């Protein structure tokens, strides 16, 4: 039984279909890359899985460990072990990096998790998770916090956005460390070189999965049939 199973999920806002009969599964301790261009529904799917307010499937179901969760609230899903790193993490006044990494477990030593995300603990533990951090620093702190949580399923929404090319190794380290900790990872990206670190991959186009399999296969498919052309030529995979 997959850890996460998305069965025929649709999501509509007004007349706009964002997701349409989407099916996807993620196994225990698997890194699954979800590859797709802008506006294909990647982040929407992440919000539906995490249970963000206003994101409930208009059709279909989401199962976690065999249990339907699509009507559960966000904190109930988090308590089951689902967490997510936003593409653009929010800032908090008056909360230090050390406090942020130990929100749920005060006894935890946050230093190793910062190091894994490429940040020196001595420089960051006492800093605030506020606007004084750059976008890249904030992103790394978010990745470190997800790692520290040791979730059963971590959703990373575009973890490389706002981070320079030289720092990609740190992101990959965090994702690999999640896997080593036994977490499954749903890795959302529009870059095939990021998807290649996954165990499996799927390509999303116009709200549905159009290709699944090995990362190499999906990346090659993605490169050859970039959905950027969909707007002018119609979806290469025939999606409406």
């Amino acid at each position, binding site marked *: 039984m997959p850890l996460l199973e998305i069965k025929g999920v649709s999501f509509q806002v007004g007349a706009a279909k964002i997701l349409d009969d989407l099916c996807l599964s993620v196994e225990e301790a698997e890194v699954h890359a979800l590859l797709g261009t802008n506006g294909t529904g990647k982040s929407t799917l992440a919000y539906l899985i*995490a249970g963000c307010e206003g994101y409930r499937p208009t059709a279909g179901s989401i199962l976690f460990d065999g249990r339907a969760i699509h009507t559960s609230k*966000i*904190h109930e899903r*988090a*308590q089951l072990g689902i*967490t997510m790193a936003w593409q653009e993490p929010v800032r*908090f006044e008056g909360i230090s990096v050390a406090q942020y990494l130990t*929100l749920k477990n005060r006894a935890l030593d946050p230093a190793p998790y910062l190091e894994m995300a490429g940040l020196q603990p001595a420089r960051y533990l006492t800093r605030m998770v506020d606007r004084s951090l750059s976008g890249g620093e904030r992103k790394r702190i978010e990745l470190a916090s997800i790692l520290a949580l040791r979730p059963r399923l971590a959703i990373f929404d575009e973890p490389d956005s706002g981070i320079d090319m030289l720092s990609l190794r740190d992101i990959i380290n965090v994702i690999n460390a999640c896997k080593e900790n036994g977490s499954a990872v749903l890795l959302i990206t529009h870059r095939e070189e990021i998807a290649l670190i996954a165990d499996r991959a799927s390509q999303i186009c116009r709200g549905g999965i159009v290709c699944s399999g090995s990362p190499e296969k999906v990346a090659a498919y993605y490169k050859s049939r970039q959905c950027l052309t969909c707007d002018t030529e119609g979806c290469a995979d025939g999606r409406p």
Partner: protein
Amino acid sequence: MDALEQLMQAFGNTGGDRAVLADSSTAHLVADGHTILSSRAIEGVEVEAQETPSGISATVRVRQGVRLTNPVHLCFGVLHKKGTQNISMDVRLEKNASVSFIAHCIFPDAEQVIHTMDAVIAIEDGAEMHYSETHFHGLHGGVEAIPKAVVSVGKNGGYLGEFTLVTGRVGRLAIDYDVEAQENAVVELTARVFGHGNDTIQIKEKVVLAGENARGLIKTRVAVEDEASAEITGITEGNAAGARGHVDCMEIVKDNGVASAIPIVRVTNSLAKVTHEAAIGSVDKRQMETLMLHGLTPEEAVDVIVKGILR
């Protein structure tokens, strides 16, 4: 237990360091109602205090060029359930002096207490003053606190004022601060208040950037819950070339609380610039969701966010 011991116990409970009274290198003034319990001047700092029929009148002088490493401690309070304490403060920092004040205003059992503060603070050219004031009004909401200050900051001077009332009830609070900054002076006013029950919070802070390149920041962080209300007025005037000012107000409203913010920005010199931002409402949804994704319950998440902005 005598009054000094009682006040010091309350002082310690609100985060004060009781050992400072015994430290001969630290200036202090401690008063209960209209009774001076203890005071100390140190070299370069004159502290003169007098008892008045309804409170204390105090003068503090920091001599030219004196730069204190230890803060001056002020502790004012009313230990009885009822009473009035009117404080009149006259503070002058002479040229290039530098000093920090740590003030505690403590009313642990207040049911019907009025506390007023009328301060006139003169910071001469090149002098710097940091004034941190923490209030504890007990749990009954029986305090009416009315702190007023008129501050002048000379050329190249600095004034950092912090007001904190985040533990226990507020009662009625009406802050009225008025600061004028001359050339290259820097002013920062920060207030953090948490209102509960039927507390009433009024904060009016005004910074006039009168000199060239003067800079000012008014930062207010307020949370209200139950039936509490808050009205925050932040006024900044840019009246000289290169003056830069900003008004930053954030208020979180829970339950039936009511909050309003009135930022007033006025510029009379085309080379000055004053900006403002205000965020009022319930707790930010994305912040809530982020914390819940980290395993907190909605109640825990709200608590972390509110405590964070008031820290």
